[in-house]
Each structure stands twice: as structure tokens, then as C-alpha cells.
């Protein structure tokens, strides 16, 4: 087994309708495809394939929580749950964080595209209010508090899913 976690998957087919990416998910073969839209979160998934981590921020001065400059949301959401106004997109440059918690996945459910075993990690980042879940490419033993930096599957390697973001030990 290699010391880096591999994916066992093919890039998901994407079509575009206006600004939205539509993910093709062939559950029952071609004819039984689910067409799942990324909707207003399309910039996030598009960004991953281009090596950019895009988050959203509430900048509404009327927001009772953000008060004009809320924390970043990751996973992003298009609208602020506190004031219900559309949020702004912002790129997180050179994304780094630390492992807030983790598990070592020995076996996943049917259809898992990540080669087991691997670490599923929850990453805390400065300025981000949420603690997004992802996976670690390294197989070395880890502990809470270990520093990590973001990596991306880009270009032809992109799966066009959340798996295009992963982390390596910094």
C-alpha cells in the first residue's frame, strides 16, 4: 500500500446550465442518472478544480451576528442564516489549519471512492467559523493539533466533487 491515499473513482460528468454546474450521478446506469445541481455553490466546486479554496462571508451591516464582517463559511453557503442576505465569495489563499478531530476509516460503505484505510479529518482554520470535514492524503500516525495544508485535484485529475479538496501534513 502506498504511503499516500489514492482515489478509486472517475471524474464525475458535469454539464452547465447558466452559472450552475450539474453533477451527473448515474445511479442506475446512464438512463438512471441523477442530475444534481451545485446551484449557487458552483464557484466552490469549480474553484477546487482550479486549485482555489473558495468560501463565503456575510458582509451585511444589518447581520446581527456578522455585523458587516462575519466569519468565513466552509463548506460555503450562498445565503447567511443569521440575516438571510446573500453572502460574498472570498478565496482563502494558501489554506492552512490544524486537525481538530479525526478518525481512521478502516472500511467505508458501498461505493466509497477513497482507498481505505485513511484519515478522515475535521480541519479548524483561522477566520473560518465552521470546522469542515475532509480527508488526509498522508498515512502517517496523526494527533489532534497537527498542522495541515490544503491540496487540490485539479485539471484532468479533478473529480468535480468534494473529494477534490484534501489535506497534507504541513
Amino acid at each position, binding site marked *: 500500500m502506498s504511503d499516500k491515499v489514492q482515489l478509486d473513482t472517475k471524474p464525475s460528468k458535469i454539464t452547465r446550465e447558466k452559472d450552475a454546474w450539474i453533477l451527473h450521478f448515474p445511479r442506475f446506469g446512464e438512463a438512471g442518472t441523477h442530475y*444534481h445541481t*451545485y446551484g449557487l*455553490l458552483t464557484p466552490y466546486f469549480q474553484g477546487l478544480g482550479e486549485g482555489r479554496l473558495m468560501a463565503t462571508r456575510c458582509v451585511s451591516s444589518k447581520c*446581527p*451576528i456578522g455585523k458587516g464582517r462575519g*466569519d468565513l463559511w466552509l*463548506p460555503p453557503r450562498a445565503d447567511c*442564516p*443569521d440575516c438571510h442576505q446573500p453572502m460574498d465569495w472570498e478565496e482563502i489563499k494558501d489554506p492552512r489549519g490544524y486537525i*481538530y*478531530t*479525526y*478518525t*481512521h*476509516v*478502516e*472500511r*467505508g*460503505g*458501498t*461505493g*466509497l*471512492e*477513497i482507498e481505505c484505510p485513511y484519515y*478522515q*479529518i*475535521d480541519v*479548524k482554520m483561522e477566520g473560518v*467559523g*465552521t*470546522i*469542515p*470535514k*475532509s*480527508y488526509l492524503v498522508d498515512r502517517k500516525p496523526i494527533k*489532534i493539533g497537527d498542522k495541515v495544508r490544503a491540496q487540490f485535484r485539479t485539471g484532468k485529475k479533478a473529480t468535480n*466533487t*468534494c*473529494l477534490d479538496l484534501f489535506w497534507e501534513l504541513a
Partner: protein
Amino acid sequence: MIEFQPGNLNVPRWTRPVYMVAAGTTDFRKRYPEKKLDELSMMAFRMLLEENDLKMDPQEVKGLINFACYGEFADHFQDQLLCEAKVHDYLGLDPLPNVGIKTGGATGGSTLLMGATTVASGMADCVLVLGWERMDEVKTWTGNFYIASAACKDFETRLARNYASYYAPMARRFQEMYNVDERVRAEIAVKNRGYARFSPFSQQPGRHTIEEVLEGDIVSDPLRFLECCAMSVGSSAALLCSEELATRLTDKPARLYLAGGSHTLRTGDRRPMRILLLPNETEDDYKELYREMKAQDGRWPGFESFGATRFAAYMAYHMAGIRNPLDDFDLIETHDAFTISDLQTYGDVGLTLYGREQDYVTSGDCYLSNPHTGKQGRCPANLSGGLLGTMHAVGATGIFQAGEVLWQLQGKYDKFHGDSKLWERYGKRKPDDWQSLQVKDPRRGMAISHAGVGSHVVCSILEKGW
């Protein structure tokens, strides 16, 4: 919502009291090819009508029902939409109205909650609450994927497709934050699976040791095989009614108080909040915890606790006049889908302070017989065998738990667990070393029904009616 406005904390005020008078259930199995889903539901319904010592004959009781609420977790598993219509018809209840209710693992509790509100509002006088799940049409690992469809499909399902892997990071963080000995988690598995040995309904009874749990295969580190519940098939039912009907139907009804809470599908989206205090807590109780959280970059409820459970308990306690849960409850059923969720819950429902959950378990108060004193624990937990030992046929679970609490309050543990004929009904033999797990003179109990990684929770308080 991370800050409450005054209206958000208004306590539900039902317009009339609601009672639970009867319960019924199947046994639970990993596979149940002998019966179809509607046939299993009939088993639970029949037990409810015929075996609860109701003061009317089954036909008369059925003649009182004027609404039904059905709980089913996942259409994926049943591979049938509108199961409610099939079951309702099969039970011979058409053309009475019914609704289907779905809130993941908390479906059973939510179904009870909705059933109770139909009585509380006057829409129904007597309501059947019945739930089921059939998880044996697919292999376990496909079942795990189905369950993981109850994680966020855009951002989390692809990261495991196995629900234990969403609980395991909570276990990891809880363990490190509160310095928990993993033997405590293992002890919970041993206790609940041990209690399941005395239940004819149980799917995974076992006399295990802490060492055996810890030496078991890892499902998702740190959770071991015996710390996780299994795929399950079965059905459970409850009969709820008005006070006037309760008087006519039984001398031993339980008054119900139910409330729910919810909190984000993704654990990491739970932004920091001030701890919502229960009646037995003060801000001072948590000064040190807030300091520790600051030092460890922690947050409440974070990965360690369930805000939805705390919110549901807050509301239900105010409805029922609970001042101190450890004094006021005589037993509790937690949603121990994983050992860690049982442990986390003791803080959420205020049986102990946050951060002291481990001490609560080792105190022995969650045992029927406290291993340190030999006396009855102050609030025995999961005498039914819980999800780990007895069942998690998801849509039935919250209803099954409430039924077990009802029978305890009625003093009927032995009737429903100790009768050799009941064991034989399910093709089992009553163990020679069978023990009664009847709590001595219980007055009040609670069942906690819990979804996702804490996305929905319903607390059902049952109190001896009179």
C-alpha cells in the same frame, strides 16, 4: 441560530394532557425473511391491542382510534414509497387519516411527538403511533451507504459512506477534551448488551467483557465493533389518548411530555453558543468548562455535545416541571447507536454536568444495580438493552424505547420480558439465568430519540398518570 430571541424559548403549552396507555412490538433481527413489513407491523399492533390489560376488548379499542402517525426512516431501505398506505390498510384502519413522519434516527420520537400533538390539540382523541424499518433487503455495507445518505451529500457522504465514521471524530474529540478512558465506552457496551440478554425482543444480547470490546475489530477508530449498533428489522407501536379515554382504558396510564430540538446535519457547522442551562444548572457550574474550552480551542456544543438534545431536554423539562433530572427520573433510555452517543447524552440531558459524563457512568448510577453499592442506581439507563443490544429498526426505535419506559412505569417489565411463552413466540428460549430488570416503584422516565450526528432529537418524558 446561535443566539436566542425571547420567543424562541417559549415552552410548548398543550391545550390538554396526553397519555400513553399501551405499547406493542415485534422482536428484532438482523434479517427477518419470515415476515413482510406489514406483517411485522401487525405483530406490534396486535400486542398493543391484546396484551396491555386494557379495560376494553381489542375491537372496542380500535374503535376509539381516529388518527395514525407512522414512522419510517428511509424509503431507500423499504424500496417502497408510501409504506404508510400499505401498513394502514393492512392494519384495517382505512379510511381514517394518517401521516408519515421522517426525522432520521429520531423518527420514532418525532412520530410520538406528532401523535401527542394531535391529541393535545383536540384533533384526535386516540392516536396510533407505529414505526418500522426493514434493513435486510441490502447487504450491510450498502445499508451503511444508505444510512450515510443522511450525511450531507455535497460535502460529507463521500468521505466515508459509513455512519460510524461520522461519530468516531466526536468520540475522538470527546475523549481528548475530557480525558476519557476508553474502558468507559466499553463499559457502556457491556452494560447495554448485558441488559439485552433478559429481553425476548433483543437482537444482539451478549455477556461481554470490557477487554473483549476493546480487543474487537475497529469499525472507525476509536469505535470498535461491539460499540456500534447493527442493521435491524422490526416494528413498534404506542397508543396515545386523551385523559378521559385513558381513564376508561387503563388504571396505569403514563402522562406524556415531549419536545424536540434540531441542530445542523454537518457537525462542523455548529457554531459556538453559550450553554443553554437546564433548571438544575447555573452559569457558575460552567466557569471552569468555558476556561478549558478556551484553552483547547473548544466550543459548545462542538463535537463533544448535542445542542439538539439539550434544547429538547430544556423544553421537555419545563413542560413536565423537571427540576433535577437525577432526582426526578427513575430510568432513562438513551439513543446508544454508538457507545459515544450514550456517554455524550448524560451531559446533554443534565444527569451530570458537561465534562463529567465519564464520572457519571463510573459512578454506577446508570445501572439497575450499582456495581459499587449493590443498590439500585439513581437513574438506570437502557434496561431495554438499548440500540446496542436490542434494536435499531430506525423508524421504530423511539417508539420502542417509550414502550419499554411505559411498561417499567406500569410495573410490567416481567410480564413483557419474563414470560417463557413470549420468548418462544420469537423462537427463543428464556435464559436459565434470566433476571428481572424492573425498576423499584418508578414514577418518571425519559426516552431520547436521536438522528444523524445530532440533527434531530426528541425527549419523551413519561410520568405515572395517577
